C-alpha cells in the first residue's frame, strides 16, 4: 500500500510540474485571460463546476415551476387561471391545464430534476469543484475532456429546452418513457417529435456524463498528492468516486435502450413492439418485448438514484464531521457501506418491475438484494448519529441542511422497505406511496445534500458567504414544507390512489383527498417561493456577500482550505501540499482541528 501511495504521489508531482510549466508558457503574467477562456470555454475545474451549478440552478427553477403548475391542477381542479392561457395558449385553454399539458409537465419535471439538476447539477458541480481541491491536484486529469463534459451537457440542455416549444409538445410519457407509449406517435402527442428530442438530448447527456465520470475516476486514482492514500481521502471523494463508477457502468446501457427506441420510432424495427393495435390501426411489428426496455432503462435507472444520492451522502458526512468538531464515526464502515450500496445498486433494478409479469422466482432475488441495501443504509444512519453524539455542534447553514438530510434519508429510506418487498409492492406500486417515498429519499434529501454543499463550499467558490438569515429561512421552510407536502401522500398511497392522474373526481375510491391535495399544492407554492429566495441569495452573494477573511473559515482539515481565498487556475500558488493524516482529526489531543497537511507529532495519540 505504502509503495503504491508513494508512486501515486510521484505521478501526481510529475504531472504537476508539467502542468506548471505549461501554465508558465501559456499565461504570461502581463496578460489577463480572455473572457471566453475564463468564463466560457474554461478548462479550470472550478469554473466548470460553477457552470454546472448555475446551469443546474436554472433547470431547477424550470423543473420546480413545472411542479407548481401541475400542483395547481391537482389542488384546484375546478378553478381556472386565465393567466395560464396568456402564458401557454392552447395548452391551457380557458385557464385550465389540458391533459396533454399536464402529462408533459409531469414528464419534464421528472426528467429535468433527475438528470439535469440532481445528476449534472449535483455531481457535476461538486465532483468538479472538490476533486482536485480535496485530493491535492492542480486540475482534472484532462481539463479539455472536462470542458467537453460541460458543453455536451449544455447541448443536451439546449435540445431538451427546445423540445418545450415544438407544436406537439415535449415528451409526455413519464420520465421513464416506457414504450410502446413512447414509441408510437399515434398513441400520444408527446410521443411525436418531442420524444425524438428527448432521446437525442439524453444521448448527448450520457456522452457528457461519461466524459465527466471517466475524468473523475482517473483523477481520483492518479492525481492524489503525496501522502494522500485512498484511505486518507475525505468521504466526499469516496462518494464521488463510487458515483462516477456507477455512472460509467450504467449510463451506456440507457444509451443502448434509447438508441433501440429511436430505431423503433424511426426505422421500423420491432425491439419493443409486438402485436399492437393503436387507435384501430393494426401495426406490422411482431416479436419485440416492451419489457426489454424496462430492463435496459432500470439497469441505469436504479443506479441513477444512487448516482443522485451518493454525492449527498459524502458531503453530508464531511459537513457533519466538520461542524460537530468530531471525527466521522466509523470512517472505514462509511467507505464500506458506500461500496456495498454501489455494488447492490447494480443488482436491484427489477424491483421496479415486480408487477410487469416478471417471473416470481426471479423476483424473489430482487426482493432479497433490495432489502439488503437497508443494511449499509442503517450503518450510515447510526454512524451519523454517533458522530453527533457528544459533539460540539455549530449550526452553520450547511450543517442544518445536513441534519435535515439525515431526517429525510431515514423517513424515505424506511418506506423503501415497504416497496422493496414484492408482496407489498403489488398493492403500493404506482400509487402516491411511491411518489412520497422517492421524493423524500431521492428528491428532497439529495437537494438537501446539494444545499448543504453549496452553503458549505460557497466561500471556496466565490470568496464570500451566503446571507445567514436567508439561509435559515430557506432551511426551516424547506424542511417543514417537505414533510407537509410528502407525509400526507403516504396516506393517499395507502388508499391506493394512482400516480399520474390529472383528476380523481370521477372515482369512488380516490375522490376523498381533495382537501389534502389543495393543502399540498399550497405548501408546494410556498416552498417554491422560498427556493427562489435561495437563488436570489446565491446570485446576490456572489457579488455582494460578506467577504471571507480567513482561508479556513470553518476550521476544517481538508486540503481545499489550504488554498488562497480565491484560488487561481492551479489552485496552490506554490507547491502542492503534502498530506500526513486522514481528514478527520477533530478535537484530538485537546486540539480543535488538525489539518491534513500537518505531520504526525511525536507524542500524538494513536487511534
Amino acid at each position, binding site marked *: 500500500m505504502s509503495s503504491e501511495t508513494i508512486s501515486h504521489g510521484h505521478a501526481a508531482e510529475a504531472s504537476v510540474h508539467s502542468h506548471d510549466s505549461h501554465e508558465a508558457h501559456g499565461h504570461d503574467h502581463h496578460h489577463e485571460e480572455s473572457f471566453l477562456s475564463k468564463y466560457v470555454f474554461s478548462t479550470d475545474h472550478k469554473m466548470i463546476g460553477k457552470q454546472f451549478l448555475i446551469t443546474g440552478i436554472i433547470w431547477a427553477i424550470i423543473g420546480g415551476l413545472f411542479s407548481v403548475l401541475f400542483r395547481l391542477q391537482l389542488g384546484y381542479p375546478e378553478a381556472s387561471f386565465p393567466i395560464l392561457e396568456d402564458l401557454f395558449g392552447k395548452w391551457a385553454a380557458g385557464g385550465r391545464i389540458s391533459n396533454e399539458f399536464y402529462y408533459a409537465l409531469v414528464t419534464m419535471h421528472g426528467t429535468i430534476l433527475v438528470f439535469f439538476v440532481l445528476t449534472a447539477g449535483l455531481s457535476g458541480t461538486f465532483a468538479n469543484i472538490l476533486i482536485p481541491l480535496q485530493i491535492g491536484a492542480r486540475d482534472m486529469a484532462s481539463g479539455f475532456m472536462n470542458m467537453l463534459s460541460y458543453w455536451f451537457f449544455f447541448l443536451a440542455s439546449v435540445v431538451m429546452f427546445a423540445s418545450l416549444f415544438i407544436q406537439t409538445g415535449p415528451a*409526455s*410519457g413519464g420520465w421513464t418513457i*416506457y414504450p410502446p407509449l413512447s414509441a408510437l406517435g399515434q*398513441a400520444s402527442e408527446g410521443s411525436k417529435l418531442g420524444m425524438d428530442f428527448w432521446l437525442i438530448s439524453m444521448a448527448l447527456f450520457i456522452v457528457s456524463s461519461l466524459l465527466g465520470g471517466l475524468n473523475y475516476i482517473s483523477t481520483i486514482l492518479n492525481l492524489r498528492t503525496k501522502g494522500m492514500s485512498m484511505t486518507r481521502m475525505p468521504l466526499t471523494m469516496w462518494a464521488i468516486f463510487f458515483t462516477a463508477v456507477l455512472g460509467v457502468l450504467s449510463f451506456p446501457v440507457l444509451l443502448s435502450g434509447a438508441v433501440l427506441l429511436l430505431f423503433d420510432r424511426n426505422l421500423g424495427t420491432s425491439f419493443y413492439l*409486438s402485436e*399492437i*393495435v*393503436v387507435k*384501430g390501426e*393494426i401495426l406490422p411489428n411482431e416479436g*419485440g*418485448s*416492451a419489457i426489454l426496455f424496462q430492463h435496459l432503462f432500470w439497469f441505469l435507472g436504479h443506479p441513477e438514484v444512487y448516482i443522485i444520492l451518493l454525492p449527498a451522502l459524502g458531503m453530508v458526512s464531511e459537513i457533519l464531521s466538520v461542524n460537530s*468538531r468530531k*471525527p466521522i*464515526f*466509523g470512517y472505514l*464502515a462509511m467507505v464500506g457501506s458506500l461500496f456495498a450500496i454501489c455494488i447492490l445498486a447494480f443488482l436491484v433494478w427489477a424491483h421496479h418491475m415486480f408487477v*410487469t*409479469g416478471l417471473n416470481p422466482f426471479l*423476483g424473489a432475488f430482487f426482493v*432479497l438484494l433490495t432489502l439488503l441495501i*437497508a*443494511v449499509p443504509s*442503517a*450503518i450510515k444512519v447510526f454512524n451519523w*448519529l*454517533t458522530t453527533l*453524539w*457528544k*459533539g460540539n*455542534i455549530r*449550526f452553520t447553514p450547511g450543517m*442544518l441542511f445536513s*441534519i435535515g438530510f*439525515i431526517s429525510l434519508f*431515514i423517513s424515505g429510506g*424506511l418506506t423503501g*422497505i415497504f416497496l422493496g*418487498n*414484492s*408482496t*407489498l409492492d*403489488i*398493492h403500493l406500486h*404506482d400509487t402516491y406511496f411511491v411518489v412520497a417515498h422517492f421524493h423524500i429519499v431521492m428528491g428532497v434529501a439529495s437537494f438537501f445534500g446539494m444545499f448543504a454543499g453549496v452553503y458549505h463550499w460557497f466561500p471556496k467558490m466565490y470568496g464570500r458567504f451566503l*446571507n*445567514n*438569515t*436567508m439561509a*435559515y429561512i430557506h432551511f426551516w421552510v424547506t424542511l417543514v414544507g417537505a414533510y407537509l407536502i410528502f407525509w*400526507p401522500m403516504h396516506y393517499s398511497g*395507502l*388508499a391506493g390512489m*394512482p400516480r*399520474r*392522474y390529472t383528476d380523481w373526481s*370521477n372515482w369512488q*375510491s380516490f375522490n376523498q383527498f381533495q382537501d389534502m391535495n389543495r393543502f399540498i399544492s399550497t405548501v408546494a407554492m410556498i416552498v417554491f417561493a422560498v427556493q427562489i429566495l435561495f437563488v436570489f441569495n446565491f446570485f446576490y452573494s456572489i457579488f455582494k456577500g460578506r467577504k471571507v477573511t480567513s482561508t479556513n473559515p470553518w476550521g476544517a482539515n481538508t486540503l481545499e482550505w489550504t488554498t488562497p481565498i480565491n484560488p487561481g487556475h492551479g489552485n496552490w500558488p506554490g507547491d502542492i501540499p503534502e498530506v500526513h493524516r486522514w481528514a478527520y482529526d477533530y*478535537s484530538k489531543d485537546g486540539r480543535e482541528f488538525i489539518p491534513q497537511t500537518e505531520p504526525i507529532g511525536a507524542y500524538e495519540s494513536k487511534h
Partner: protein
Amino acid sequence: MSGYFILIILVLASVLIFQISKASEYVSVLKGEEKSFKQSNRINAFLFILFMVLGLAGAWWCNELLYDRTLLAQPAASDHGEKIDFMLWMTIIVTGIVFLLTQVLLFWFAFKYQYSEKRTSYFFPHNNKLELLWTVVPAIFLTVLVGFGLFYWFKITGDAPKDAQIVEITGKQFNWMMRYPGKDNVLGRKNYRLTDASSGNALGVDWEDGASHDDVEASEMHLVVGKPVQLVINAQDVIHDVGLVHFRLKMDAVPGIPTTLWFTPKYTTEQMKKITGNKDFVYEISCDQICGSGHYSMRGVIVVETQEEYDAWMSSKKPQYITVKEGAAPAAPAADSTAAAVTATMSKPLAQLK
C-alpha cells in the same frame, strides 16, 4: 387580476425578507461575530427540538385526519389482500419503531450537543462492537421481513386453483374490455391482425377456433363471491395496468405478452356497501401505468355477486360470435341497467366502446 395581486405581494414580501436579512448581517458584524453566532446557534438548536415535537404531534394529527380514508380502515376484499394487509402492518410496526428511535435521537443529539464553550467534542473515531451491533440487528429484522414477504409472494403469484373462473381483461386507450370463456371455460384463440371493432371483433378473436363461439364479451367484470378467479390480462396499444385497489392487487397489461393474476373475492359489492358505510361503493379497476392523455379516466367496474345473481347476468348475455354472425350491432353489451347507472358518471370510456 388577483394573480397579479398575489405576485406583487410576493415580490414585496421578498424585498422585506431581503432587507431584514441584510440588516441582521450588519447587526451581527456590529455585535461581534462570536456573540451573534452563539445566539443563532441556540435558536437553531431549539428549533430542532420544536420541530421534532411539533412534527410528531403533526404526524399524529395527520393520522387522525386521514386514517379513515385509507384502505387500512377497511378489510381487504380478497384472500391475497388479507395477507398483504398483515405484511403491511408488520412492516409499519417495525419501521415505525426504527423511525421514532432514529428521528428522536437525531434531533435530541442536535439539541443536547449544541455548541458550548465549556465542552470539547469527544474524540471517538470508531468502535467495532457498535458497528457490528447495527449491522447485525437490522439484518435480523430484514431477514424476518424478507422471509414473510417471500412466503406470501409465492402464495400470491403461485398457480391458480384448477376450478378458478377465467376472465380475460384487455386494456386499450382508454377503457377496459372483458371476455368470458363460456361453458367450455376455454377462451377462444386470438390474432391481433383480425382486430376490427367496426365489425364486432374489437378483441381480435379468431372465429375459426371453435372454443371462441361461446365466449361472451362485456364492458364490466362480474365475479362470484368466494370463487377463485384468474384474470388473463392483455393490452392492445400501450402498457396499461389492472389496478384492483380493494383487492390490494395489481398487474401490468403488456401488448404482446399476456399476464395473469388470480384471487378470491371475499365480499359482494352489496356487502362492501355495508362494510364501508358508503352506499355508492363500487369495486373499481384503475389503470396504474401511465398510458396517455386519458390515463386518469381509464376506469372499469367489477361487480362481485352471488352465484345466482351471476348466473342470471350471464344468461342474459349472448356470445359475441352469435351477435356477429347475426350481423347485429357490434360489441356494445347494452345489457344491464344497474351497471349503466353505476358507470354513468364515466361517460368517456363507455362512449368509446359504444
